[in-house]
């Protein structure tokens, strides 16, 4: 590793470049990759909040009300907002990956990537619509 190592005849002396700590900032694709890695933290946040919600539900109506009040804390709203954006980002990159992972063929021809990714989005919209429908019906 040390560049000052003396050269010895008939022995290679390779130079190894160190990867800089900020390597990911060089390029949009690298940065995107780091953001996706980072998104896992926020997905975890979501999960923790969900677990807390279940815990509160089990604790009875008062506990659940307390939990709901806690959710209104501006910091938590911000956290949830940011988490939502990251999860969205994660989902979109995940969906776009499907055509890479599955080469779908129809009558011997490979389907274009857009068509392979599309069902994901359609399903996503359908589920979202169902959720919205259920929520608004309750309300």
């Amino acid at each position, binding site marked *: 590793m040390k560049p000052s190592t003396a050269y010895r*005849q*008939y*022995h*290679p*002396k390779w130079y190894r470049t160190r990867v800089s700590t900020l390597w990911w900032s060089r390029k949009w694709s690298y940065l995107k990759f780091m953001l996706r890695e980072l998104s896992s933290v926020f997905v975890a946040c979501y999960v923790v909040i969900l677990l807390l919600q279940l815990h509160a539900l089990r604790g009875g109506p008062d506990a659940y009300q307390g939990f709901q009040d806690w959710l209104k804390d501006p910091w938590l709203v911000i956290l949830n907002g940011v988490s939502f954006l990251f999860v969205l980002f994660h989902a979109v990159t995940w969906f776009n990956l499907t055509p890479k992972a599955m080469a779908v063929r129809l009558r011997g021809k490979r389907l274009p990537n857009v068509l392979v990714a599309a069902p994901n989005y359609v399903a996503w919209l359908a589920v979202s619509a169902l959720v919205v429908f259920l929520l608004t019906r309750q309300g």
Partner: protein
Amino acid sequence: MTDSLSSEMPSHDVLLVGGGGAGLRAAIAVSEVDPNLSVAVVSKVYPMRSHTVSAEGGSAAVIKEGDSLDEHAYDTISGGDWMCDQDAVELFVNEAPGEMLQLEHWGCPWSREPDGRVAVRPFGGMKKERTWFAADKTGFHMLHALFQTSLKYRSIARYDEWFVTRLLVEDGRVQGVVAIELMTGKIQAITAKSVIICTGGCGKVFPFTTNANIKNGDGMALAYRAGVPLKDMEFVQYHPTGLPFTGILITEASRAEGGFLLNKDGYRYLQDYDLGTPQPKPVLRSMELGPRDRLSQAFMKELEKGRTLEGPYGPYVHLDLTHLGKKIIDTKLPFVRELCLKYENIDPVSELIPVRPVVHYMMGGVHTDIQGATPLAGLFAAGEAACVSINGANRLGSNSLTELLVFGGRAGRAAAEHALQDKPLSAGIEAQAADEKKRLEREFLHKSGGTEPIAGLRGEMQSIMEKSAGIYRTGTLLEEAQAKVAELKERFRQVAIQDHSHTFNTELTAALELSYMLDVAEAVVECALHRTESRGAHQRIDFPRRDDERFLAHSLVSHRPDDRPRVEYLPVTITRWPPGERVYGRPAAPAPPG
């Protein structure tokens, strides 16, 4: 310094110089004869960089109904202007289908018919469709299939990026090589009971060539210096369609799919040179599907008539693929389109491609018999570096890839048998290796004060070869070349080397390659001068006729230190096809009446 070479002289049973198609096929063949035989593949580049990778069009073998081995043999023999050894050709066409199927079993992605069988395409000089292809990257796929398959054999050791400088010969047999490990600069003797030369051709002796930078006739020169004769070196194939500046090959398949050659008036000029009449669809053995030598010669005639175009890199004509349409070009000739777009900024779908004849292949090479054995015990050769000869005076397109399989395999098996005889290493080998090390240090590594730049000498060699030993030759020009090459060899003693590093010294290798090329150039010129006739790729303006009386014979040129090389002749083996006229684009004989 008492740097002993012996204490660490690795030893193998069979050693291959060169890791291209022929070398890898041979290596696998050795392992299949006896998995206990240790094989060394010594190559100056990683095997998958070898020049087999650049072959495009295909590889010939009879596989379809309606074709026959005899027809393949006849096309090959007439294509070679009756200079092929017919026993070798018969054996070649016989073993070709088996070798091709073997490669199919090793994973080569041959293009297929809808029913899953291997597809074949027409090719120049072939009367039937028998050229197997993997799109237009056939050589690439064959090489990678062979290389990847070779990784399976534990007995194959590789010396990647080792540059061979000399064959070790003692007691009348070859016993190894001296090589430089490029990474460290270590000069090392590697001993072996059999050595196979599979270093390919020497296109870089000429200025315009489809050949890669590494094609410097290394193995031919190594054998030549060891006293082994080179055979038929005057037969240098020009491919009629190379890109002018880069020499990048536009495969014959582009004409097989229906491409036209046009002069500056947009005229299909081949019809003026006894190659048939123009048809809208390709006709086998006719017009654009005539043999390479005749097409290249037609270009020179057009040039004389002032009917070629003139560009920054000299004269050229046009290859027209536009009428084929995007679909055919993209499915059958994707690499042609890629090459034109990426390297010449031209789209063959809508534009004409500028092409000129460029040096493509060496029919000649190290003299071997049909087992790949040279006259020197233990030394074998295969592929373009060798001359068996199945290519005669002009090789047919798509025979060379098959040749490296058939004769690579044969040489591998013969070398294995030879190694099994297990003769001991001669006592003098170590001293010889030490001498070679001293020579390399004296002449190159420790040398200073040289005055002749490598590129200068190389450029002068290339231009005299193009001028004198090109498509058309004369005695006067060849004599000029003879003197010039001798002068260049003399001046090479003063070659300038700035780089004295031990680490990946490419100036050293460039100098060594130039010295190999000068030897090969000498052999080419000498043979061309002695052959006072015209045949196939060797066209003498001063002797325009074929002379079967005197020259139905192979040239054998031998190196003589401090003297001009000696040229001798060896009769061509004729079995079933007596010499006849080479006819393209019309029936071979008048049709019988009625």
